């Protein structure tokens, strides 16, 4: 087993770590899913309001590839469908029946390994079963294209973005299906790399430890597939590797084992009142996990962690990819002489605050803590970038529309971890600039 040392990154000691106990929350009346946060998808809705759906019925597909299907996480009545800007599907609300109808898919017989299915049959099962989208491909993080075999599949066991369930929690009692999932992946790609952070490695069962190929030592975003590929690649081919998160490998294995659309999820919740892990199902409304969420004034609900998550309303649900819900206070209060305070409790990468003497944990909010200014070329962003991009120079070449130069700087290696934006004293949203540049390039490429 190799150990990869990742020196750059950010160890943020934020308050609100969820407790290690796991609660169960499956007595739900409604499920809510959304297509809006799914990157790159061009949705084609397959249901209408008032339709009856079964667990595993198709809700929407991708126009670019109709084989990519997103299935209903529950059986019942499609109550409402809400749209966001540009008719993105924001919410599909399914009111659950007392006894839910279910679609069934072919399953493996007891003791059978997914390898005997062969690649084509396996791809067919995974796409019809709605679990294929969990496998995505670098560098644009779109759904993996079944027609082009990848050089490798990277399995990321951790999610170091604050806060997500560690592997020991989501693997609990699911070791067998996890291994089935891994076997399926090895049918799809010649190389399967299983990557885990050093502290998490010690806590997982021996059987899974055997499957681990790489340990990473480092702070967020050492868990990212892009960082792993950047650190291990020896040739440009590796850039198009596929990747999947460990918790999604569990879903893959579960699906192949029992032929049902898998909806079991472990969700880490960090809110002012609730700090715990929940055993729940895809589509569970966030209000079921965080009671009184509507009453939480001036707070932001984030599906995912604080670096990569996206803001959602109180009516949202745990979406297909989500494994965390974070509720942060909005930092929108003015602060009297804010820039002159000693700042013992202000988290900072710099030593300009007394917090340099405080190990934390720090209470954090969504405040920018300043106003946007022009880049002063301090170079701090480059000191945290895990894939050695020079964000300040790359940003400037993107602003000047020098896409070739940005690409040569490694724009496509960017893992969109958000650390450059986080540390910038001028509050320039570098990550957004790079993300925008990447998306533009991807669209251009797709069009040609």
């Amino acid at each position, binding site marked *: 087993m190799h150990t990869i040392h990742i020196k750059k990154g950010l160890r943020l000691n934020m308050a609100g770590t969820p407790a290690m106990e796991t609660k169960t929350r499956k007595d739900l009346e409604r499920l809510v899913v959304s297509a809006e946060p799914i990157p790159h998808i061009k949705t084609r809705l397959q249901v209408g309001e008032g339709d009856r759906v079964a667990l595993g019925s198709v809700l929407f597909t991708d126009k670019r590839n109709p084989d990519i299907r997103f299935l209903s996480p529950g059986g019942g009545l499609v109550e409402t469908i809400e749209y966001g800007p540009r008719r993105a599907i924001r919410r599909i609300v399914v009111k659950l029946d007392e006894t839910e109808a279910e679609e069934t898919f072919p399953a493996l017989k007891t003791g059978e390994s997914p390898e005997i299915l062969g690649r084509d049959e396996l791809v067919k099962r995974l796409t019809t079963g709605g679990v294929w989208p969990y496998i995505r491909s670098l560098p644009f993080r779109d759904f993996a294209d079944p027609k082009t075999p990848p050089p490798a599949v990277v399995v990321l066991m951790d999610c170091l973005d604050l806060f997500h369930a560690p592997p020991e929690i989501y693997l609990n009692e699911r070791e067998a299906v996890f291994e089935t999932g891994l076997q399926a992946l090895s049918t799809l790609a010649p190389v399967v790399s299983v990557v885990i952070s050093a502290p998490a490695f010690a806590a997982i069962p021996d059987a899974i430890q055997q499957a681990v190929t790489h340990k990473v030592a480092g702070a967020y975003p050492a868990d990212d597939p892009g960082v792993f590929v950047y650190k291990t690649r020896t040739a*440009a081919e590796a850039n198009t590797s596929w990747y999947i998160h460990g918790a999604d490998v569990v879903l893959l294995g579960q699906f192949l084992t029992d032929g049902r659309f898998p909806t079991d999820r472990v969700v880490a919740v960090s809110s002012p009142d609730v700090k715990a892990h929940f055993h729940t199902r895809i589509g569970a409304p966030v209000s079921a996990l965080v009671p009184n969420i509507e009453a939480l004034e001036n707070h932001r609900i984030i599906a995912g962690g604080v670096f990569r998550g996206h803001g959602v309303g109180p009516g949202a649900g745990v979406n297909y990819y989500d494994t965390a819900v974070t509720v942060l206070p909005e930092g929108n*209060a003015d602060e*009297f002489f804010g820039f002159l305070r000693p700042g013992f409790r202000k988290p900072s990468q710099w030593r300009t605050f007394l917090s340099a003497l405080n190990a934390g944990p720090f209470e954090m909010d969504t*405040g920018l803590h300043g106003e946007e200014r*022009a880049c002063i070329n*301090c170079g701090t962003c480059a000191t945290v970038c895990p894939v050695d991009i020079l964000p*300040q120079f790359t940003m400037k070449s993107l602003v000047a529309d020098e896409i070739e130069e940005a690409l040569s700087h490694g724009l496509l290696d960017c893992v969109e971890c958000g650390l450059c934006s986080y540390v910038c*004293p001028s509050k320039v949203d570098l990550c957004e600039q790079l993300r925008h540049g990447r998306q533009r390039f991807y669209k251009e490429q797709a069009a040609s």
Partner: protein
Amino acid sequence: MRFIRNLFESQKKHFSKDGPLAWLAPLFNATETFFFLPGLVTKQRPHVRDSLDLKRFMSMVLVALVPPLLFGIYNTGYQASQAAGLSTAWLPVVLRGVEVVLPLIIVSYGVGFFWELLFASIRGHEISEGFLVTGLLFPLILPPTTPLWQAAIGISFGVVIGKEIFGGTGRNVFNPALTGRAFLFFAYPAQMSGDQVWVANLAAHGTDVVTGATPLAVSALSQAGKSMATVLNDAGFSFMRMFWGHLPGSVGGTSAFCCLLGAVFLIVVGVASYRIMLGGVIGVLATGGLLNLFAGPGAHPWYGLNPFYHLVMGGFAFGIVYMATDPVSAPGMQKSRWVYGFLIGMLTVLIRVFNPAYPEGVMMAILFMNLFAPLLDHVEIQLRLRQRIPNV
């Protein structure tokens, strides 16, 4: 606090888009955000941000400038009092120093701020905090005898030509304070160099023009055959005196010790690049040491000067700590910063030694290297990209 908040809230309407004072909105916003750090929030991921902003960043440089500023006020008063034969007791000296230095600072901030506001209003930008530093750096590198009108012209040139025509803070090629200083140096050589400008003239106290040579001027006049350290010592400039800075010179730039205090502070808080500072020191010592090899009878006495003297003479310490580390006009790459600092140190010594027309070299050295900073960055980036496995 409530009262100030209400005051801003009640006056805000005048500066809104349709208000009568809309063109002064940058001034209003700058004042308001000085009192109240605005509660802006992130729009998308990442949802959290570091607590440091540019206001605090620049405030740290101001804090680091406090030792040279306070000592500068004292020293200016002391040198002037001594030359005028007045009492050198502590309090009157400080008061006389304030009398000389404060008008320079007020003019620098006032005139510079006018230009900042003008450009911010026309562009619809906010006023950038970078000016807080420029406005204080500029008077500290002036001779204490600088007429106020020249200070006004100098800071105007520095802010407008040195910064605003490039697009404002963050886009300027040269350090604005040094640009203004260089402009004055070339436009008004009589008031900016020579022996008669380095001690404030307390004309009100009935004295004539005061001569007070600086160590660099003394050195420039030294003749072959006599060690320069001896010449300096004879003139009363021992190494330690130059280190403490108790001698005639520009307002805030005489004391290497105060600059050292500022440097330590800036490095501890992480605001200025230690690479540039150390690079500069190494550059001076290496070049000075190299010149020592050519020292001997018949050679110019500069060659034989102990390189450590270069560190404490003139404005080198002030320049390398506060001017060269301006992140905007310095390179952004870490290795380039070493080279940049080193070359500043080297050029400072070379200009001092080989160009008798400019007794002080650090100003020209920094401006010259400002010009080369983008090239250094470019070379380092290209070398770095060669090692990268492409991903296109």
